[in-house]
């Protein structure tokens, strides 16, 4: 195997993840503040937690938070049983 072929093999070891995964990770600092507020409320307000579990997107909108895919995905991970 030539050095170039070895290098090519190593490049193939690291395929890119889906773009959406990367974008979600990049948005983490931006959404973190909103998430912290919502998570804190979920912890102390059982009724709010039930609403979030029942209809996450609608509850977020009612709270004035845009339920972007990133926010929804992060919250779903936190409230998953």
């Amino acid at each position, binding site marked *: 195997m030539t050095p170039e072929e070895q*290098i090519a093999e190593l*490049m193939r*070891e*690291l395929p890119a993840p889906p773009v959406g995964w990367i974008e*979600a990770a990049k948005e*983490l600092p931006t959404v973190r503040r909103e998430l912290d507020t919502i998570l804190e409320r979920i912890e102390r307000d059982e009724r709010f937690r039930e609403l979030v579990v029942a209809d996450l997107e609608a509850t977020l909108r009612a709270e004035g938070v845009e339920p972007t895919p990133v926010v929804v995905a*992060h919250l779903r991970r936190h409230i998953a049983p």
Partner: protein
Amino acid sequence: MDAASDAELVARCRAGDQAAWEALVDRYSRYVHAIVSRVYHLESHDAEDAFQDVFTRVFERLDTLRDGSALRPWIAQTARNCAVDALRRSGREVPVGEVPDAPDEGLARLDEAMTVHAALDRLSPDCHEILDRFFCRDESYRTIGSELELPAGTIASRIARCLTRLRDALEPGRKQQATTSGEKVEERR
């Protein structure tokens, strides 16, 4: 790609620099993805959860990293922990063949690959693009030619030339030698 060192990126992230965080994610997304999906064989949904958990933990715990230059091994360990957590959460019986019997070996290989990607980032944008498309995204000559508006007949030679530059970037001072790399890149049409 941000050319800053890991230590510089960490310092900027700690200061709340969003661009630095995005550069960190760009630099390590392939590495984390490879650990959770190739070393620990997590399937798509579990792999995505583990991937996001890794970056969440990195973001939340960056202040605990004493030496910013140790970012890569710290991320590797975080990814291993998240992958194991994901396997446990999935609650499924993990076939023997899926258990990483030598994760350190797999990680060593990924570390080598990261070194190659770091050198790739130092090449010209044109070389970076064509090598990434061909080797990492597995695109055909036709797709590359169409996307980059290049005649298909020039793509093999350009890939070979860029591979030589990448090799030289990995081994500074190495004398140019005649290569047979063209044989390899001729395989996919």
